[in-house]
C-alpha cells in the first residue's frame, strides 16, 4: 500500500480560552488572575480591533511585570474611548499628553524611574498608526536611537479613524478614506511606498521589533512577554482591523486580521537587533481578493467594470512580501 505523508495542523490555536492546552500555555486572557488593564465599559465600537489588541498587550505586559507598569498614550481612538470624563477604563497608571509625543513622554517616565531607582517599574507607550508613523515619528525615532527602556506598541488600523477615516502613511494602496475617495482615474489611496514602520524600527538596531495581528492572540501575548524580558527600546506593531473605517462587519475583525496575514499583505515577523529571527509562515497563501472583498473601503475595485488591474497590483504587493520575508511554509 503506497504511503501518503500527511501533515496535521492544530486549528484551535487561535481560540483564546483553549482549555485543551496545558495551563502554562494558556493565554493570559484565559486566566482568572488577568489584570483587566483596559477594563470593560469603555466606548470602543463593536468589533474594535484596537480595544482587543490593547487589552491583550497590556494584560500580558502587566503579567510579565507583576503589575509594575506605567503607560503613556498618544491621542487617538484608544485614548478617547477609554477616558470619557469622568470615567477611565485604565487599571494601571496611565498618562495621555499629546498626539505626537507618546514616545518622548515614555522616555521621560523611564528616565524619572531610573533616576529614582525604581527599576522594578517598566514603561509601555501606545498609539495608533497616525500618532506613531506620522505625527509622532520624530519622537519615536528619537526614543529608538537613544535605546530608551520603553516598549512602544502601535495599533495599526491603517488610517485616522478617530477624526473620520483620513489617510495615514499606513493606509494601504487603493483603500478608500475620507480624503482618498474612489473618484478620478486612480480611485482610493495612491500606490506609493507608504511607511513600513517595523522595517524602519529594525533599521535603528533596537533590541526587539515584532509584528502581530489580533487574529493570533497567543502570538501577540508571546511577543509582549518576549519584549518585557528585554530592556532598551522595543517596538510591536499590531494590525487591528477597524469595522468603521474599513467598512467591514464587526464579526469580521478577527477573520480580516487573519486574512491580512494569510494573503501576505501583513507579514508577521520578529526581529532582534535589526535581524529577523522569526516569521510566522503562511500555510496556503490566500488571494488578496478574499481579503479585499468584505471591506467597503475596497468596494470600488469590485464594481462594474471590476478593477482587476488594481487588485493585481495589490496582489503584487502581497507576493513581494511573501518573497521578501520568506513567508511561505515549505513542506
Amino acid at each position, binding site marked *: 500500500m503506497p504511503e501518503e505523508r500527511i501533515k496535521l495542523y492544530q486549528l484551535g490555536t487561535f481560540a483564546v480560552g483553549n482549555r485543551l492546552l496545558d495551563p502554562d500555555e494558556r493565554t493570559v486572557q484565559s486566566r482568572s488572575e488577568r489584570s483587566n488593564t483596559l477594563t470593560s465599559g469603555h466606548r470602543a465600537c463593536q468589533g474594535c480591533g484596537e480595544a482587543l489588541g490593547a487589552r491583550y498587550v497590556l494584560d500580558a505586559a502587566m503579567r510579565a511585570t507583576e503589575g509594575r507598569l506605567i503607560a503613556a498614550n498618544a491621542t487617538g481612538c484608544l485614548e478617547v474611548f477609554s477616558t470619557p470624563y469622568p470615567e477611565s477604563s485604565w487599571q494601571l*497608571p496611565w498618562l495621555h499628553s499629546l498626539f505626537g509625543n507618546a514616545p518622548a513622554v515614555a522616555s521621560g517616565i523611564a*528616565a524619572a524611574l531610573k533616576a529614582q531607582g525604581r527599576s522594578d517599574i517598566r514603561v509601555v507607550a501606545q498609539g495608533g498608526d497616525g500618532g506613531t508613523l506620522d505625527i509622532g515619528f520624530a519622537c519615536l525615532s528619537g526614543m529608538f536611537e537613544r535605546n530608551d527602556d520603553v516598549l512602544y506598541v502601535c495599533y495599526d488600523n491603517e488610517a485616522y479613524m478617530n477624526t473620520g477615516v483620513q489617510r495615514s502613511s499606513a493606509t494601504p494602496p487603493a483603500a478608500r478614506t475620507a480624503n482618498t475617495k474612489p473618484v478620478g482615474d486612480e480611485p482610493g489611496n495612491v500606490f506609493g511606498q507608504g511607511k513600513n514602520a517595523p522595517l524602519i524600527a529594525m533599521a535603528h538596531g533596537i533590541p526587539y521589533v515584532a509584528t502581530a495581528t489580533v487574529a493570533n492572540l497567543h502570538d501577540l501575548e508571546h511577543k509582549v512577554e518576549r519584549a518585557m524580558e528585554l530592556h532598551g527600546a522595543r517596538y510591536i506593531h499590531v494590525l487591528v482591523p477597524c469595522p468603521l473605517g474599513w467598512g467591514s462587519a464587526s464579526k469580521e475583525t478577527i477573520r480580516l486580521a487573519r486574512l491580512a496575514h494569510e494573503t501576505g499583505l501583513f507579514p508577521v515577523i520578529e526581529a532582534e537587533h535589526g535581524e529577523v529571527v522569526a516569521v510566522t509562515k503562511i500555510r496556503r497563501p490566500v488571494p488578496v481578493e478574499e481579503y479585499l472583498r468584505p471591506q467597503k473601503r475596497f468596494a470600488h475595485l469590485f464594481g462594474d467594470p471590476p478593477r482587476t488591474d488594481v487588485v493585481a497590483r495589490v496582489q503584487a504587493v502581497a507576493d513581494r512580501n511573501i518573497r521578501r520575508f520568506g513567508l511561505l511554509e515549505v513542506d
Partner: protein
Amino acid sequence: MRRQLEGSQAVAQAVARCRPQVVSAYPISPQTHIVEGLSDLVRTGELHPCEYLMVESEFGALSAAIGASAAGARTYTATASQGLLYMAEALYNASGLGLPIVMTVANRAIGAPINIWNDHSDVMSQRDCGWIQLFAESNQEAVDLHLQAFALAEELSLPVMVNMDGFVLTHAVEPVDVPSQVEADAFLPAFEPRQVLDPDDPVTIGAMVGPEAFTEVKVLMHAKQMQALDMVPRIAGEFEERFGRGSGGLVRTYPYPLDPAETVVVALGSVLGTIDEVVDELRAEGVDVASLGIRCFRPYPLEEIRGALCHAKRVVVVERAFAVGIGGIVGQNVRLALAGLPVPVYDVVAGLGGRAVTRRSLRTLLADVVAERIEPHRLTFLDLNHELLDRELRRMGERRKSGPHAENILRDLGVVAAGSH
C-alpha cells in the same frame, strides 16, 4: 561666594543645586551653554542621581519633561526662540496637566527673518500658555530665580518659565553668587508631587474632558496662577531672609520706594539696568522720572502695577517685542492695569533682534516724551532707520515683483554703509 561666571554656567550650577532628577534638552542658541553645563555635571557625577536626555527636538524635550514630571521627578529643561514655538503644544499640555516643570528661556527673536539675538518675541508669543513667567534682570537674579522657580512650581503644581535675555545675560561674565548645596537644600525641600504615576496607586492623568467640566478645569488653572500672586512675593521674601539679597517678586521700582513720579518707564529683563542709569542721569538733571520692572509677567500683577503707576503723569513702556497688527504687548497689559485712570501710556518698541538699547536713545526718547513731541497711543520704534524703510517702501510702490524684504534691506544696508548712493 561671588565668582566670575558666565550667566549660562551660573544658571547650570544653580539648577544643579536644585537637584533635578531629569534634564531633557535640545540645542538652540543662546540656551546651549546652560544645558551643556548640566550635561557636564551629570557626566562627572557631580549631579547625581539625574538622567540627562538629549532628545530629537524641543517638542520632544518638553514632552520628555512632561513624562518625567508626571512620574514624580523634579524636571528641568531650557530653550529659546523657535524652540519655544516648537514646544507650543506641549507648553499648554504641561500647564493644563499641572506639572511643575522649570524651564529657562534664553530670550531670543523669532524668524522670519531668522535672527539669533535677544528680544522678547519668544516669551511674549507664549504669554498665555498657562506657565508662570518670571524675568531676570541680571545673572545673579537669574540664578536666584531658578531656586525660587522650583519652590513656586512645586508648591502650586504649575510649570514655571525663567526668562533671561539671550547673550546679554546668558553669555555675559560677571560676579555671581551661586548658592551652595547646603544652602539650596535648606531653601528647597524635596519634591512631593501632587499627582504621580505609581503602580501602587494607579491614576489616569490626561483624560478627555467635555463641556460638562472643561470650564471648571480651566478655572482651576487660573485660580492656581492667581495664587502665585501671593506665593511669588512670599517665596522672594523667604529667599531674601535666607540669602540676604532681594531678587524676584512681582514688580520692583527704582528708585525704591517709588515716590510718585511724573514719568515712569516700564520694562522687563536686563534692559532695566540701562533704564535705571538713565533714570539716575535724568533725576540728577531735575527730570522727575522713575522705573518699574515687571519681574512676574504671568500671572499678571495688575494691582501692584496699578498701584505703582496710578499717580504718574505718563507711562512709557519699553518693550522688546510687539504684536504685529496692533502694537505693544506689555503696553496693552499696562493699559489694562490703568483702566479708568487718565494716564497716557506710550508704547515704545526697542531692542528687536538684538539691536542695542542705548542710554543715548533712551534719553532722547524720554526728552521727546516729556516735551510731548511723541503722541501717546501711537506705536513708537526706538532707533528706527527710516531711510532703509523708505527705500523698500518706494521699491514696493514702483514694481509688483519687488522681491523679499529682508534681502532687499540687507543689500540697501550695504549700499548705505558704503556711502555710495
